[in-house]
């Protein structure tokens, strides 16, 4: 069974291998992928997305370099660590606070784009530009 299916956006301008890296990380954060899961093989990815298998392998090497996954010869590539943070889970207080804030921002007349802009600007200030 496949644990994750990648969606490649050809218009995004983001390199295909980075899209795969990002989608794996996203899945790790959201708990879609957990420790011990096998990532789809380069062949399986190619069958659904027609992406060059070397690109998939390059993405997996990047994830391996970051210590997130591990190749096991002859068996596939497996997840080493989940990135799911309890603090970011559905029922965490931090999430509830942000939901609260968004409700207030909406009431104050901010649109979706305004909220995203504020959020991006503040996270950039805090963590530095990507």
């Amino acid at each position, binding site marked *: 069974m496949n644990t994750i299916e990648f969606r490649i956006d050809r218009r995004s301008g983001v390199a295909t291998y980075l899209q795969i890296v990002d989608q794996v990380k996203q899945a790790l954060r959201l708990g879609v992928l957990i420790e011990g899961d096998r990532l789809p093989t380069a062949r399986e990815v190619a069958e659904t997305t027609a*992406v*060059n298998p070397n*690109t998939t392998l390059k993405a997996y090497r990047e994830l391996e370099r970051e210590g997130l996954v591990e190749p096991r010869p002859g068996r596939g590539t497996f997840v080493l660590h989940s990135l799911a943070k309890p603090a970011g889970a559905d029922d965490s207080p931090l999430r509830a606070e942000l939901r609260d804030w968004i409700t207030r921002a909406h009431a104050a007349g901010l649109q979706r784009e305004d909220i995203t802009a504020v959020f991006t600007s503040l996270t950039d200030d805090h963590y530095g530009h990507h």
Partner: protein
Amino acid sequence: MNDTWAIEAHGLGKRYRRGWALRDCSFRIPAGRICGLVGPNGAGKSTLLNLAARLRRPTAGSLRLFGTSISDPEAILRMAFLPQDKPLFKRFTVEETLRLGRELNPGWDQTVAERIVGAGNIPLHARVGTLSGGQRTRVAFALAFGKRPNLLVLDEPMADLDPLARHETAATLMAETADSGTTVVMSSHLLGELADMCDYLVLLCDGRIRLAGDVDELLPAHRLITGTGAHLEPHTVVESRTTGRQTTALIRPEGAIAPSWAVAEPCLEDVLLAYLRAPAAPVLMTDVARVPEPAVAA
């Protein structure tokens, strides 16, 4: 036998009655790459692929597949070729078409061939002439991969397919390559789709190589800059356009780019289109693609 280089061309040329279709081409493609061969119509793409498939003979220079010169009939054993019109015997059934592959190729892999046909739900007893374009392409792929080639050469494999068949064909090609490690060289006009499939690129214009190398090296070598400045020196300019006061250019930076320019990383399509529009742009070959000068005799 040499497993490092799937293709090595040195001084390769082909002249027809109307003139040179391919001239003084020296480049190489490492084994395991999926290489896109791009160029305008009449640039010599088909000629190059036909030379590799031993369907035509070069007028000048040498061409080697895995170290074996194409003047040696053995060179055909390690490669499979899919011409643009994907010729198959229309009266043969699918099964007979696979049998053709089995009878004529000592290394034939029936399992691979049947898997590719089966994935398209094509009945083995159907006559090839009754199949759709996409199905025929699938059968041609089965024949090509069943040979278990080290090098698969495809001439415009998706040119005549509808979008769905095109995606399926691309997916089959990529999936089968994943298992076999086959080197693929395909010519195509579909720049967008090449970007996902190819990790290596050869661009031909007027029978000459304009660009060759790993996509990962070719792309970072270019910058898309926009600004009001007029001074593009000392950078190598591939293409520049000026609209009113604004200049947009695709350059190969030589040193730091002046801060007055807005700089962006081009995507593969940007780079290819720029080179296609500017046939006089300076040639770029990465170290991997360049054939060492004291060339091996043909």
